[in-house]
């Protein structure tokens, strides 16, 4: 029987084609499954990081409420302590005046011995000076407490702010003027694209820029070729502001706490750790977001997104 006569030859060739096709299909499906799996894994990762972000925002919100309460509680005693201290200051002046009068009208020699020995035993000249200073320092300290309390209130941020139409770029320019001195030795690079005015609280947004720029300046302290670059641009219906520095950067442990109130790595008296948490509150209240990426010893970049209203 010749090949042409054998119907199984044809059948065999058909089978072979069918098998090759099946193998190709199997490979195609494997590829599709692989891609779908990849996409799933990607969305899973995204979900996970979004969840982390949500947890963080929740934590910050709780801290906000807590800080508002604490601020309120501290404010009341703070008010009367401050007012008492300034009253004491004026009382002190009165006592000091009495003493001067006494000393001028009744020379020491003419005093009764008991009074005279008491005056000589205590260094009233020093006491007078020191008392004044003590009260001044106390008032100064109270002012600082009041500032911190104010910061806490700003972070908690529930008062609806007065909004007005403003140009973000102008705010950046005026903030930069304010910072002339601290930024003296730093190269500042600006790329400010024209932006539409947005409804915002300009002084608050300026405060955010100020906080970011002072942090950048701090991070650049003692580094070679210090540079800050400020960029603004419009992306769809969002205004983006990025402020980056080539400063010391931050480890992950700092980045993840940066918006937490009172979190600071700076020396006592240098930083209160409120700058970024206040900024966070302000940007949130504008319906925007603030993000950080940072690499240790390389620098940091902050991105603020604000919706165009």
């Amino acid at each position, binding site marked *: 029987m010749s090949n042409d006569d054998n*119907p*199984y030859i*044809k*059948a065999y060739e*058909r*089978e072979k*084609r*069918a*098998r090759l*096709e*099946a193998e190709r*299909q199997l490979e195609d*499906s494997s590829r599709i499954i692989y891609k779908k799996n990849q996409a799933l894994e990607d969305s899973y990762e995204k979900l996970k990081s979004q969840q982390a972000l949500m947890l963080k925002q929740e934590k910050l919100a709780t801290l906000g409420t807590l800080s508002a309460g604490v601020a309120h509680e501290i404010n009341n005693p703070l008010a009367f302590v401050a007012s008492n201290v300034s009253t004491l200051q004026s009382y002190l002046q009165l006592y000091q005046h009495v003493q001067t009068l006494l000393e001028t009208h009744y020379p020491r020699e003419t005093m009764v011995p008991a009074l005279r020995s008491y005056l000589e035993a205590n260094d009233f000249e020093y006491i007078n000076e020191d008392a004044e200073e003590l009260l001044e320092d106390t008032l100064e300290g109270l002012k600082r407490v009041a500032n911190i309390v104010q910061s806490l209130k700003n972070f908690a941020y529930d008062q609806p702010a007065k909004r007005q139409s403003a140009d973000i770029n102008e705010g950046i320019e005026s903030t930069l003027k304010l910072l002339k001195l601290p930024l003296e030795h730093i190269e500042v690079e600006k790329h400010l694209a024209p932006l539409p005015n947005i409804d915002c609280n300009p002084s608050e947004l300026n405060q955010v820029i100020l906080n970011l720029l002072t942090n950048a300046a701090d991070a650049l302290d003692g580094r070679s070729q210090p540079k800050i670059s400020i960029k603004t641009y419009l992306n769809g219906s969002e205004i983006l502001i990025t402020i980056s520095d080539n400063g010391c950067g931050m480890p992950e442990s700092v980045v993840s706490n940066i918006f937490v109130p009172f979190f600071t790595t700076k020396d006592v008296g240098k930083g209160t750790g409120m700058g970024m948490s206040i900024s966070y509150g302000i940007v949130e209240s504008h319906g925007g977001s603030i993000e950080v990426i940072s690499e240790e010893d390389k620098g940091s970049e902050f991105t603020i997104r604000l919706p165009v209203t």
Partner: protein
Amino acid sequence: MKGIVFNILEEMVIEKCGMAAWNELLETALPDEDGAFTAGKSYPDENLFALVHAASAKLETPAEQIISGLGEYMFGELAKRYPIFIEQAPDLKTFLLSVDQVIHTEVRKLYDDPNLPSFEYTQLDSGALLMEYRSPRKLCILAEGLIRGAAHHYQTPITLSHPTCMHTGSDHCDLIVEFGDEQ
């Protein structure tokens, strides 16, 4: 129509009439095709109908009878390929009730975008099962054959009636299965 249906038709023809007959059917019905069918791939419905009509002409048998025969044969082949669906159903009625929601649902996972009919079930007071068949391919006769094949497998005598049909202008077919052993 998925290649698997062509494969089963092929097996049926070869089993009953031999390889030469199948080669000939392919040559007359689909002279421009290479005749190879892969189970998971979709081929034009017309190709199946062309093969059925060629067979009908060659065997001088009405096309319906060929489709019905294919259905009956198809059940056996599907049962061989997917024994799990049969094992899951203890009796014919349970099996038929599982076609739409269980079996064809599984088929959707295994095959990319298959063309499957839909079945709606009503259990009649008499104990009979009414299956409403809907499909743009109007393969109700294939369904009849599949049901007969299943009945044969479960060794359950049935009476099958088909009072409403898409081929006579209705929007669906009523397939009524009366189970012999319940009467």
